[in-house]
Structure formats: structure tokens, C-alpha cells
């Protein structure tokens, strides 16, 4: 978000005075700046990641191979890390900073501390980014072609792991900042219910603190010392298990800011009110409790883990469907209420009364719809035995481009159309382009993800530069493999165009001289308010404790038996590629 020119600045400055007193930008100019800088990083990562995405879509289908197939995996690592970690989490940090401040109605405790975590997160990102990009330059002996699921014995340069650790510490500091802000509010309001948005931020962060312990141990205890050459190669199964301890809950870390927008912003845009505040709280508590003790469902096919442990993870996973199903109900009910307020009638007729021209609404509605489809393919993944048909096939990216790639990413884009004017004071550059862009994402994703799901059922593997083998003929259900490839690539191109339109629209908004208007920051109260819900829901300590106990129950035995099996540092394990020497050269 670049700074406007002198004259442009004046128009917007004077127009700012026309903003209502309770608009976010007027009340919290400094917090608005923090959110702007977080969004900037998120959108830069999004742009680069989307470019990698279209390269992959064209490459693996054989339509256009612009890079060497060996470099494909560098691009794929960048795509995964930039989109699934940097874009999502920086955007989350922006939304949470906004939401916590808005709902507690007070700024974070210390400006310095806030900037400190922003800088920490950015520095970690830069370090990991350098390590990944250097993989493209053979002259530099640094690489991190380990994909965003970095487990041993594939090895990245220590800078990559250290960067990730610094980044995660940055997110912890952010969480601490939001908690301090809440505690300061609590001192002034000892008897009030936690405001809903803040409640969502806090429960999500507790979940994150617990979840990141897994990856912190993996990276700090095992991977960093190993990549520095101080310690031997760790047990690969152990690093996988620690990764997935974190790797599943991160899914909900992506999703929670989207849910926050669906629960609190979407009803307002639709012209209505949230159906039920208590149910929203129940949903977030359920996510806090159930997000982590399920990670082993990513390891249904791992040897060395007993079937019983997989079974426990499967049961927990199925119960994790519950909060999402409840969300579907509440969100649809709230939207319907909005439509009826706007004069909609009939069983389905109310759908016509919704503000479909508003890209913020349509984007989130389409995102929610795709999430339903993603939920179905997710149930297949979760089904311990059906999973055998699809594990690590193209089905899996087909699934998560519906969930994180659309339910989350498209909600973020739609949310940006609503939020960016509120933190810049500038009018959205173009609503029609915005509308076209979100619909294009939907259409592109239907093409890409349908082709991926079908390719996966035929057994086409994911993460593969050239999934065309002399020994293997893939058999598809409907349509030929050739037509699936075309569909996948076509969808990928549409998605990339949509991403460019989004970045352009937001960029031009940030430079727009037309002031935004009517940016009242209040959100309408829920139809059933918080007073309807038992106060125990607000007892965060209790929920945190139960969550920890559930994690211990789900993980202590599997971890114990993995270490019993092959040990912490089993004999005969070797890094690939070994990158121990280069660090010393880099320092020297």
C-alpha cells in the first residue's frame, strides 16, 4: 500500500474528516497502519505464490514447461510456504489486530511491542524466503527444496529452519500482544462478557500456542542442530509426527480468521445480524479442543504407528466436523435473516434479495459454498480406509484448494474489499472488477479442483513435476487424462488472472484519491446475544487446560512408541542433500 502523492494525500486527508467519529481509521490510526503493513506482506506473498501456482499447473500437465523439472520443487516449496504460511498468517495477524482492537475498543498496550512482533515475523519470513529462492541459483550453496511439510531426512539450509522458528516466535509475540490488550480491557470491565471478536481471537491463539509446540520441538530440538551438523539425523517418523501435530491445527489457524469474518462481518454486509452469539462461542471452543489431537490422520499410511492410534485420530477428526456443520447453519441463518430484512421472501426467494453485486458478500458466499464441497472431499480423506485410495494423490491438493485455497483465500480477498477501505480511508477502486474477480476465482477453482479430484482417483500423484510415466497408464472415471490436464491448466490460468485482478484492485484502492464513506465500525448485535450463553464459555483457562489434556491423551502413547521403535537418532539415517558445510562458508 504505497503512500499517496502530496495532492492526493490532501484530498484524502480532508476527506478523512468526513469519516464518522466511530470509524476505525479515525479512532485507531496507528493500529490501521499496523494492519496495512501486515496486509501488504500478505498480498505480496499472495502474488508471488499465485505466479508459482500457474507455473505448476502448466508444468505438471505438460502444457508449458518453462522451468527445469528439477526446479519444479523449489517453486512448489515457495508456493506452499508463501501461500499456506505467509499469506494466510500475515492476513490473519491483520484481521486479528483489527478485530481485537475494534471489539475491545482499545488499542494494544504498547506500540513498540506491536511493531516488534511485526518485524520479527517479517524477518523470519525473509530468512526462509532467501533460503528457498537461493535454491534456484546453483552458484549459491543454499537450498530449501523440502516443501512446506519439512520433515527429515530431506534437508534444507539452516537459514530456512531458523527463519521459520523466528517467524513462529513472531506469531507467539502477536498472541501475547492480543492477550495483553484483552487483560487491560478486563481490568476496566471485570464483569463483562468477552466481546465476540476478541473471544475468537483469544481461543484461536490458545489453539495456536498448543499446536506450534510440535513444530517448535521439531525445528529447534531436531532440525536446526541437525542442519548445522551438531547432531545426527533424527528419526524421520518422529519429525513427521511432530510436524503433523502442528500441521493439522494450522488448517484451523487458516480457517479461523475466515470464520471470524463469516460470523461477524458477513451478516452485516448481508444486512442482517448474527443468528446466535452463544453458538459462535461454542464453535470456537470446539475448535480449540479438537484441532490438535487429530494430526495423526495425516499419517494413516505411515508404518510404525499402530492402528489404534490412527483410529483415535479418526474419531476425533469426525467430531471436528461438528463445529463446521454448526457454522454452516449459523452463517446461512444469519444471511437469510439479512435477506429478509432487505425484503426477501419465500422459501428460496430470499436468495435474490442478497447483495450479490457486492464483491465482499459474493466472495464470502462463494467461499462458503466451496467450503461445503471441500468438506465432502475432506470426509473422504478423513475416512481411514477410503483414504487409501486418495492419499498423496492429486485428490489432496484438489481438496485443499477448495478449503484453504478458496474458503480461506477467497474470504480473505472478499474481506479485503470490505476492510481495506476501513484501514485506508480510501474508496474501493472498482466494485465490478471486484465482483468479476471473485466469481472468476470460483469458476477457475471449479475447473482446477474438479480435475485434481478426478486425477487423484485415477492415482495421479501430487507434488510431481512430470506425472507421466512409461510404466503407468492412469484410468479416469469420466473424460480422458488429457482432458483432465487441460481442465487443470485452464483453471489454473483463470485463478492466476483472478489473483492479478485482485492485487490490481487493492493496489489501486490504496492509491485511490476518492475517500471512502460511511465506514461506521460498529457491527450489529447478535439475535441471541452473549447473555444467553453460560459464562463458563468465557473461562479460557478451563478450555486451555482441557485442550492440553486431550493432546496429551492423543499423543503421549504414539510418541512414546515411535521413540521406543527406532529411537531418537536411529542408525543409518542420512541427510539429503547434506548442507552442513555451506553454512561455515557463508559466514566466513
Amino acid at each position: 500500500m504505497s503512500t499517496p502523492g502530496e495532492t492526493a494525500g490532501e484530498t484524502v486527508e480532508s476527506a478523512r474528516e468526513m469519516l464518522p467519529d466511530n470509524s476505525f481509521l479515525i479512532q485507531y490510526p496507528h493500529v490501521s497502519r499496523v494492519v496495512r503493513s501486515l496486509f501488504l506482506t500478505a498480498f505480496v506473498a499472495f502474488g508471488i505464490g499465485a505466479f508459482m501456482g500457474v507455473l505448476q499447473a502448466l508444468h505438471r500437465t505438460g502444457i508449458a514447461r518453462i522451468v527445469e523439472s528439477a526446479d519444479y520443487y523449489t517453486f512448489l516449496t515457495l508456493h506452499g510456504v508463501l501461500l499456506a504460511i505467509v499469506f494466510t498468517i500475515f492476513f490473519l495477524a491483520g484481521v486479528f489486530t483489527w478485530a481485537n482492537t475494534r471489539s475491545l475498543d482499545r488499542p494494544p498496550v504498547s506500540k513498540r511491542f506491536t511493531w516488534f512482533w511485526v518485524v520479527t515475523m517479517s524477518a523470519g519470513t525473509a530468512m526462509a524466503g532467501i533460503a528457498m529462492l537461493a535454491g534456484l541459483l546453483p552458484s549459491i550453496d543454499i537450498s530449501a527444496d523440502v516443501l512446506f511439510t519439512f520433515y527429515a531426512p530431506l534437508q534444507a539450509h539452516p537459514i530456512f529452519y531458523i527463519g521459520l522458528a523466528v517467524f513462529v516466535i513472531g506469531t507467539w509475540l502477536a498472541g501475547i500482544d492480543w492477550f495483553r490488550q484483552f487483560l487491560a480491557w478486563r481490568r476496566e470491565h471485570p464483569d463483562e462478557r468477552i466481546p465476540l471478536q476478541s473471544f475468537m481471537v483469544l481461543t484461536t491463539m490458545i489453539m495456536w500456542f498448543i499446536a506450534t509446540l510440535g513444530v517448535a520441538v521439531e525445528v529447534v530440538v531436531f532440525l536446526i542442530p541437525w542442519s548445522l551438523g551438531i547432531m545426527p539425523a533424527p528419526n524421520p517418523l518422529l519429525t513427521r509426527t511432530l510436524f503433523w501435530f502442528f500441521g493439522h491445527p494450522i488448517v484451523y489457524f487458516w480457517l479461523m480468521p475466515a470464520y471470524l469474518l463469516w460470523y461477524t462481518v458477513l451478516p452485516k454486509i448481508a444486512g442482517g445480524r448474527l443468528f446466535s452469539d452463544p453458538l459462535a462461542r461454542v464453535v470456537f471452543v470446539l475448535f480449540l479442543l479438537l484441532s490438535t489431537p487429530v494430526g495423526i490422520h495425516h499419517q494413516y499410511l505411515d508404518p510404525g504407528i499402530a492402528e489404534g492410534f490412527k483410529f483415535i485420530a479418526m474419531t476425533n477428526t469426525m467430531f471436528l466436523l461438528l463445529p463446521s456443520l454448526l457454522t454452516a447453519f449459523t452463517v446461512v441463518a444469519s444471511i437469510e435473516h439479512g435477506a429478509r430484512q432487505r425484503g426477501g421472501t419465500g422459501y428460496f426467494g430470499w436468495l435474490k434479495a442478497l447483495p450479490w453485486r457486492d464483491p465482499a458478500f459474493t466472495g464470502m458466499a462463494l467461499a462458503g459454498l466451496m467450503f461445503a464441497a471441500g468438506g465432502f472431499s475432506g470426509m473422504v480423506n478423513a475416512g481411514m480406509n477410503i483414504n487409501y485410495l486418495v492419499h498423496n494423490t492429486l485428490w489432496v491438493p484438489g481438496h485443499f484448494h477448495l478449503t484453504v485455497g478458496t474458503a480461506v483465500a477467497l474470504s480473505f480477498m472478499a474481506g479485503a474489499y470490505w476492510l481495506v477501505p476501513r484501514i485506508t480511508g480510501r474508496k474501493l477502486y472498482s466494485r465490478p472488477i471486484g465482483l468479476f474477480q471473485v466469481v472468476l476465482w470460483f469458476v477457475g477453482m471449479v475447473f482446477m479442483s474438479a480435475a485434481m479430484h478426478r486425477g487423484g482417483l485415477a492415482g495421479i500423484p501430487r507434488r510431481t513435476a512430470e506425472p507421466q510415466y512409461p510404466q503407468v497408464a492412469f484410468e479416469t472415471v469420466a473424460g480422458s487424462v488429457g482432458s483432465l490436464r487441460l481442465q487443470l491448466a485452464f483453471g489454473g490460468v483463470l485463478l492466476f488472472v483472478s489473483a492479478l485482478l485482485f492485487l490490481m484492485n487493492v493496489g489501486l484502492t490504496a492509491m485511490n484519491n476518492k475517500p471512502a464513506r460511511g465506514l461506521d465500525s460498529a457491527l450489529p448485535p447478535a439475535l441471541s446475544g452473549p447473555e444467553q450463553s453460560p459464562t463458563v464459555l468465557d473461562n479460557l483457562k478451563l478450555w486451555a487446560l482441557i485442550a492440553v489434556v486431550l493432546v496429551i491423551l492423543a499423543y503421549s502413547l504414539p510418541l512414546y512408541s515411535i521413540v521406543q521403535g527406532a529411537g531418537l537418532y536411529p542408525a543409518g539415517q542420512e541427510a539429503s542433500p547434506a548442507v552442513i558445510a555451506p553454512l561455515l562458508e557463508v559466514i566466513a
Partner: protein
Amino acid sequence: MHVHNYEKLWLGASLLLIVGFISTIVYGAAGAGITMVNDEGGQVNPKELGNTSGFDDPGVTKVGPNEYEVHIVALQFAFQPGTVELPANSTVTFYVTSRDVVHGFEVAGTNANTMVIPGEVSQITVEFDEPGEYGIVCHEYCGAGHHSMAAELIVREPSNFTMQDDTQTPTSGNETTNATATPTGGESA
């Protein structure tokens, strides 16, 4: 706590759905006898596979009237052996392990699928009813040549199937990379 009637209905239906899913899976696991990859394969030293029984000479072994064992070593970037031949209507147990990094083992388009982790042995039992040719792919990224890692599985009519001697296989040990199994010699099954 006030809960709207529709909410209660939805909640009940959701719980029913979830319990339904869990029961189908329990039935699938216990009733229909779909076995999962678990910890039964045990552990090996990935650098000592040449001295590990089974993996020192990967390939097909007959262990019963209609039962076969197949030992497979995955390495950057091939499976050993590169061709597996089996008779139809047989029960086959695969033992797969890796010599270097994490790989995948998937008979494309079927549910014969497992991760292959260095130090661990994946054990899966599969029944092949129909003759046909299947592709085996590595579905886990394992390094820059990952996309060239595949093998083939040929299921023959039992009458057409011949295999090497089931007690002793005289051919090459695990020093051959990119090995293609020799489908000749031995008695017929």
C-alpha cells in the same frame, strides 16, 4: 443457554452423521477386513538392507499355495525390483522400505498405498483378482528426480505365471539400481 429449535434439530442431525461415519469406518476396519498399514513391519537399518533378510534380495517369494511375499526397496529414484509379476487370485504381502529418504508406494488407481519411511518397514496385504498391468508410482516428494520414480506390476493369469525358485533366488543382490526383475526360470506356480 437458549438454543433455537432449528439449531437443536441441526445439531442432532450433525451428530447422527458423525456417528454414522465412524460406524461405517469401524465396520470397514473390523467387519470387511480392510487392514491398515501399522507398526507390524518393524524397524530396519536403512544402511544395512544388504544384510537384512528379505531386503538383501528384493522381489517375489512364494510362501503358500496362493500366497506371496514381495520385498521392495525404494531409493532415490527407483524401486527395486522395477517390475513385479504376480499371479491373479493370490494374496500378496508387500514389505516396503527405503534406503534413503521418505518415499511413497502406490499401485495407481487402487487402494494398495503406503508411505515408505527409512528405518521402518511398511507391510500391506493386497488381493489381486484380475489379471492386468498396473503402474507403481512414488507419490511422496523425495528429491529432484522424484517424477521419474515408478515401477510396474503385472498380474498374470495363474496359468501363464512362472517365477523364480521360491527358496533361493540366484540373481543380483541389492547393488543393482534400476533393477528390472527377470521373469524367467523356476517352477510354475
